[in-house]
């Protein structure tokens, strides 16, 4: 299976059903809600909240519009967090999900630093904190079930398909068939080398809080260094042994001169 979401924010009605379903399926406790300038609650993702709907009041053609963003893991094709983890606590499964094995984790939090979308979250204040993130409902995927957020979404904003290309085709069709309804950018098609979750919106994505993420495959950036290590080993050994031999010979010659 190659699990994939096409999240269409133009269809989202902001009911937050996905948030609730996610909490229920993953058994995550509730968060203290806060009153602020936005309707978003909880305000940010955290170790207990794997997904949320972010509410934005924007102005379009002189009229006030309400636009939504859905935060959560994009399940990169080549995830930075998986490459960052020194102990393979994070893995990209053959189903397409990026999941976490708490038994291996040492708590270095390099996954949090490395993720371009700031998705992995830590249990701050706990003695032995775990990392938390959306699992793509991996336990449902292996059972051939649709992830709980997609299952629950009443307006069809979260389309689940087996195959990223199928969703990509559908995303392109929606953009071309409905001129003017979409901002012409499929978020996740190229971001961080491509992700399993694709996202469409009617407004420019930076206006609804999505990070500008380049096309580079992030694990390739660090692999450039790691892949060069054998050459560095050869170089240092050659230089070290070479200089030792040369300086030793000079020393011996000095001795001969003296004798």
């Amino acid at each position, binding site marked *: 299976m190659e699990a994939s979401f096409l999240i269409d924010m133009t269809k989202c009605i902001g009911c937050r059903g996905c948030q609730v379903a996610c909490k229920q399926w993953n058994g995550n406790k509730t968060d203290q809600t806060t009153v602020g300038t936005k309707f978003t609650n909880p305000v940010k993702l955290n170790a207990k909240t794997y997904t949320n709907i972010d509410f934005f009041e924007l102005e379009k053609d002189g009229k006030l519009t309400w636009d939504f963003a859905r935060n959560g893991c994009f399940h990169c094709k080549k995830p930075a967090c998986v490459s960052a983890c020194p102990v393979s606590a994070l893995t990209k499964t053959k189903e397409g999900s990026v999941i976490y094995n708490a038994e291996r984790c*040492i*708590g270095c939090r390099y996954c949090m630093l490395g993720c371009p979308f700031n998705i992995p979250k830590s249990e701050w*204040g706990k003695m032995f904190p775990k990392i938390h993130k959306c699992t793509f409902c991996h336990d449902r995927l292996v059972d051939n079930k649709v992830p709980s957020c997609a299952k629950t979404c009443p307006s069809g904003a979260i389309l689940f398909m087996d195959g990223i290309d199928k969703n990509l085709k559908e995303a392109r069709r929606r953009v071309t068939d409905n001129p003017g309804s979409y901002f012409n950018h499929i978020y996740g098609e190229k971001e961080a080398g491509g992700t399993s979750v694709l996202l469409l919106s009617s407004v420019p994505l930076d206006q609804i809080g999505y990070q500008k993420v380049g096309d580079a495959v992030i*694990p390739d950036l*660090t692999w450039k260094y790691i892949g060069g290590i054998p050459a*560095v080993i050869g170089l240092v050994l050659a230089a070290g042994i070479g*200089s030792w031999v040369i300086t030793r010979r000079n020393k011996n010659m000095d001795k001969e001169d003296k004798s």
Partner: protein
Amino acid sequence: MKPAQNQIKLFTPATIALLLVIIYGAFTVMKKFTMGDIHTNLSDDFPWGIWIGFNVLGGVATAGGGFVIASAVYLLNMKKYKSIARPAILTAFIGYLLAASSIFLDLGHPFRIWHPVVMWQIQSVMFIVAIHVVLYTSVLALESSPMLLEKLKLEGLKNIVEKMMVGIALFGTLLSVLHQSSLGAVYLIVPYKLHTLWYSSTLPFSFLVSAVMMGLCMVSFLIILSSRFFKSPLNMDILTGLARGTLVTMAVYLALKTYILLSGPGLSAAFAGSMESRMYLLEMLAGVVIPLVLLLLPAVRNNLAGILLVDMLVICGVIINRLNVSIFGMLRQAEEMGVKYSPHQNEIVVSLFMIAVGALLYKLAVKYFNVLSYEDV
């Protein structure tokens, strides 16, 4: 001649001050194990603070002198520096022990610190870093062991270690080159988070070169301090030699940093007037440009006070560089996520605790082992 170390007093005002910092810090450190966690200002959008930026990145850079002097003495046969091999290696050993202790405190699961050694994940720079911390700390222990062995009168064992010293030094140099550079490589993973003034594919190389520069200055700095506090003999010839080494390394580093600036964000980025550009200028002026100009003057290079000033500038400059990469250069991205970071009091206390422990360990080693007055082969 009676060794100078017998005259070192155990309790001096400076040592008592160190002990007070250590006792105060120990209460904070113990919170990790009694209260569950040491409260810090770290958060989901800013997961690494000064324990990584200052203690680990700074501490390991400080230790750069260990492999530079070891390879100069054992691989390049530069006899002149034999007398400072011990303090240089000891400094590196203490630096690594403290960096490892800081990682231990920073980890969420400190008792699983051994996991990377058995659960290899070669795609991870963090794995490379972890393996090198373990291996190089062991090598430094081995390189420092003759001091302990002669104290225990195990001359046979000491001779064996010293016979292998060339091989050990070579292995240590290899590990150091990889470890110093891999700490820079850690930040290759944040192309969109780290400010363009610092993000560059050459980060591993600039970390390595600056660690050599810092290491040379740290050794020189400690020799000067030791002569002041422990009345150890001072050899001006060695200090001038170290200063020359610093000068050459610094020229390479300046060229590299200039290339990074011009090929990346451009000269104007350094003068943009933002917080980042000011930190960048501070790092470059205090740590590179001013000491470079000073070292070009023979009057400074051959003068004790001049060398001491240059050492302090470079040490501060490289530490600022590490803080810029790990903290100041990352703040803007965190602010976009609505998060600010400045170290919590606990974080600062623990950092000071580590410095105090390091200084005390160095003093005790100098008092009880033959670190400074070691002269014959």
